[in-house]
Each structure stands twice: as structure tokens, then as C-alpha cells.
């Protein structure tokens, strides 16, 4: 899983019917220290994350699909599965 910050959302009226009602969020990967990296990614939301939240994104098709749509096999590869409260580093 990667750490990311939700920086926006995407409105797509026409999308795969398997995730018709899902929210698609625009996320920017961050380091554990909180600095933004150059990698941004779209992820389906499964935990009601909002813009500004630090989140956990799972990037494996089966898990992402199960988490975000309830069933496996939807055509997605990233899902937000948690909102991060705190990261403690050594």
C-alpha cells in the first residue's frame, strides 16, 4: 500500500458499470514524512475520504475491487482503504 494525500476528485458520468456509484479520487503519493512525490494516481474511495486527507491506497486489482465495489473483478487497480491519523517513524 502507498501513502497518499487526496488532492481532488474526478467526475465521470460515463464509467464502467461495475463502479457506477463509486467516487473517483485524485491522489498524490507522499513520503512517510509528508512530502509530496511526483506520482499521482486515481483511486476509488471505499472509506469516505475527503480532499486533504492522508490515505492508504491499495494497488492490487483483486483487493482494490473487493474493497471499493464489494465484489472482485471490476476493472480497477487502486482503491483507498483507510484514512491515516498518524505515521510514527523511527
Amino acid at each position, binding site marked *: *500500500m502507498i501513502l497518499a494525500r487526496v488532492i481532488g476528485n474526478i467526475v465521470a458520468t460515463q464509467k464502467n458499470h461495475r463502479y457506477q456509484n463509486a467516487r473517483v479520487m485524485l491522489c498524490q503519493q507522499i513520503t512517510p514524512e509528508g512530502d509530496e512525490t511526483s506520482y499521482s494516481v486515481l483511486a476509488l474511495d471505499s472509506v*469516505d475520504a475527503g480532499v486533504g486527507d492522508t490515505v*492508504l491506497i491499495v494497488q*492490487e486489482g483483486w483487493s482494490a475491487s473487493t474493497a471499493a465495489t464489494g465484489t472482485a473483478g471490476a476493472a480497477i487497480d487502486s482503491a483507498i482503504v*483507510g484514512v491515516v491519523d498518524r505515521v510514527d*517513524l523511527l
Partner: protein
Amino acid sequence: MQLARVIGTVVSTVKNESLRGRKLLVVQTIDKNLESIGKPMVAIDAVGAGIGELVFWCRGKEASFPFKREDTPTDCTIVGIVDSEQHVTRSEFKL
């Protein structure tokens, strides 16, 4: 599977139901010389690892196999703890 060092923990209250009770750890992947490569990732713990330990993690859908299948959304799971740095040995022989 990749060698990694556990460098931190993640606290998350609001999360996917199937992640409840799971330990989330920040892991920095390291190479054969125990030097950092790439960016740190967040892994679920399946073996009882802690901060500072040398571990190895598994990626892909196989990462959820230690847990009840379909139940745990993860792409990075800690599946082993290396006893110590001295237990990472490699042969210097050239074939």
C-alpha cells in the same frame, strides 16, 4: 518478495472493515547490500514484526493469502522476519 526494514507504524481509525485489527507498518525496501531502494511503502503485518526489524514482504494478490481470502485488501504484506543482518548472506563465488 523483497527485503525491507520496518521504519515506522501507521495509525488509521477510519478504514476498510476487513483491515480492522491489522497492524500497519511502514517498510523501506532494501537491496542485497542492505541499502535503501525506492520509496517506503505501507505493509500489513502477518508475522508479528516490529519497528527496526529486518523483514521480507510479498506483493500482489498473493499478499492477501495469509489472511482470509477476499477479506483483506492488501498489496504488500510482511511474511517473514529475518533473524539478523548477519543472516543475510550471499556467496561471492562467480560461476
